[in-house]
């Protein structure tokens, strides 16, 4: 409804329209407030990273808009570490982890939700256990394992341990469980085998969850620090988080450069996500089966 209200509209309808408008105004107020809460800290960090050399970072009242704005801090990040090489490594790891998680978790989720077999309980318990294991304690045992497999100091060694997240499997199982069993039955009556039912009936119904799993896997891989640090010893193979750590260097870091570093780690993800968000959220909506 636009600004001009047609003359012949009944008073009741007008009241409804007005009520809807105030409701929408409130909704917008809430939405904007939450956006400030969610994006504010990031923007402040961005502003810090852009503040020019010699500008006082600790002034009161705070200086929101960067004075003498310059990209100098970003250039310095690039001088200190081969940032693009690291970004490529991170991308390789993240892409591989997304692929293995999507495939592995979707398949496993399907089996857990839609198939009856001996050992199902055991498999389910395995994933629950895996979620609960505190990662920091199995670190050395895991490292010894990669050594004996001969995959230490390779990106493969970074990828494999996070190839399939147990949490993703459970999310997938939950999504698959929501698919009505009648659909499965119909597939069986049509003579479709397990793989066909999975591909043609189950997967299209959980596209939203697949998108969710993909994002989770990507963020997890991009974010991980301690494991790649332990596994990799060759600098050319470092991932972004490990590489950026050189910035918080031996000597006290410049807050601007550290801010720039965190922005370099965050911004690609944010941009990537903003670009893909429509598919991500639409997927969530359309992938669901009514019922």
């Amino acid at each position, binding site marked *: 409804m636009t600004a001009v209200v047609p003359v012949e509209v009944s008073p009741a309808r007008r009241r409804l329209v007005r009520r809807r408008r105030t409701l929408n105004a409130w909704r917008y107020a809430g939405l904007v407030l*939450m*956006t400030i809460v969610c994006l504010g*800290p990031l923007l*402040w*960090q961005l502003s810090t990273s852009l503040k020019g050399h010699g500008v006082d970072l*600790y002034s*009161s*009242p*705070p200086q929101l808009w960067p004075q003498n704005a310059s990209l100098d801090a970003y250039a310095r990040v690039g001088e200190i570490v081969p940032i693009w090489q690291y970004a490529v490594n991170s991308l390789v790891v993240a892409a591989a982890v997304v692929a293995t998680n*999507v*495939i*592995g*978790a979707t*398949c*496993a989720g399907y*089996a857990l939700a839609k*198939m009856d*077999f001996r050992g199902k309980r055991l*498999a389910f318990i*395995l994933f*629950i*256990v895996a*979620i*609960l294991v*505190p990662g*920091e*304690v*199995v670190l*050395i*045992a895991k490292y010894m394992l990669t050594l004996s497999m001969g995959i230490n100091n390779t990106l493969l060694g970074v990828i494999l*341990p996070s190839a399939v997240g*147990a*949490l993703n499997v459970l*999310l997938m199982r939950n999504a698959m469980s929501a698919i009505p069993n009648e659909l499965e039955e119909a597939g*069986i009556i049509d*003579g*479709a*085998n*397990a*793989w066909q039912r*999975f591909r*043609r009936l189950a997967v299209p119904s959980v596209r*939203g969850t697949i998108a*969710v799993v993909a*994002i989770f896997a990507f*963020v997890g891989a*991009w*974010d991980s620090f301690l494991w790649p640090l332990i596994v990799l010893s060759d600098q050319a193979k470092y991932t972004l*988080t490990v590489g950026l750590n050189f910035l918080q260097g031996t000597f006290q870091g410049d807050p601007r450069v*550290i*801010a720039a570093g*965190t922005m370099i*780690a*965050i911004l690609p*993800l944010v941009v990537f*996500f903003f670009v893909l968000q429509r598919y991500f959220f639409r997927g*969530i909506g359309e*992938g*669901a089966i009514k*019922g």
Partner: protein
Amino acid sequence: MATPTTTSAASRPVREPSSRRNPDRAAPARRAARHAWFTPWLFLAIAVVTEALFTVFPFFNTVVLGFTDASRLGGGQFIGLENFSRMLEDERFWTALFNSVLYMVVVVPCMVVLPLFLAMLVNTKLPGAGFFRTSYYVPVVSSTVAVGIMWSWMLDSQGLVNQTLQALGVVTAPVPFLTDRWLLLASAMLVTVWTGLGWYMVVYLAALANVGKDLYDAAAMDGAGWWRRFTSVTVPGVRNTMVLVAALSSVAAFRVFTEIYVLSGNSAGPGGADMTMVMLIQRVGTGLDADVGYASALSIVVFLITIGLMIATLKMQTKGDEK
């Protein structure tokens, strides 16, 4: 999508709805022959192998180590339950247990409820909804470490929050967000909720899409108000998801580490008063002089508690299903 490696060529998907490739399936709906015994395992293969190899197997090693006096660089003698009796006398252990439980008790209700409201707020066709949804998810896609650095930069005694509060005259001296035991814990909870909002919002959005619009229409027709529709349609519709969120967030909250660690400037708060279970494990179990045996014993305790939490919440789910 790439072709999965777990299937045989014979079962590759075919576009046409033909059963030509599966003569054995010609008789429809044979009760027992839905799939061969090994088919589920082919589906599970990647996931099971990964978890078994890189998580569960190392964890069994850890369990064994929990009963030894192993250090990082040396082997270990079996010492029975000594590590566990040591815990009872370790004041750090009791502080950590208290803080972890408190963290969970405060954070979990927030995680179950707030993201649901956020999901409902944003679950609209209004112009710009896409932008808002996306911006709420941004904290999730930001790296945890960067988020920690960001918030300590903001909550610092000279940080944005304190500078603003002082400039507005709300307070005269800086609020000790990061140096007071309780405020630090509260700040960490705030950061946890801040990052978790978007995460669980998405989970709820997926669930809300499953709640039939016709149910809402029917309820609206009956003249049900906003609250009635919320309690009689939305909540039952996403109940299972709420249980799932409760299970996941309680485990995550009980194992809180990064938020407190980063905000407290890599300490456990003043005098170690904000120690949590995982922080204690990290402190005891890392570094060159790590006490691997004791750290392993602590992990066993954390593991037992979290698995208890998980089972309890999932029980709630199945109980609900029977109703």
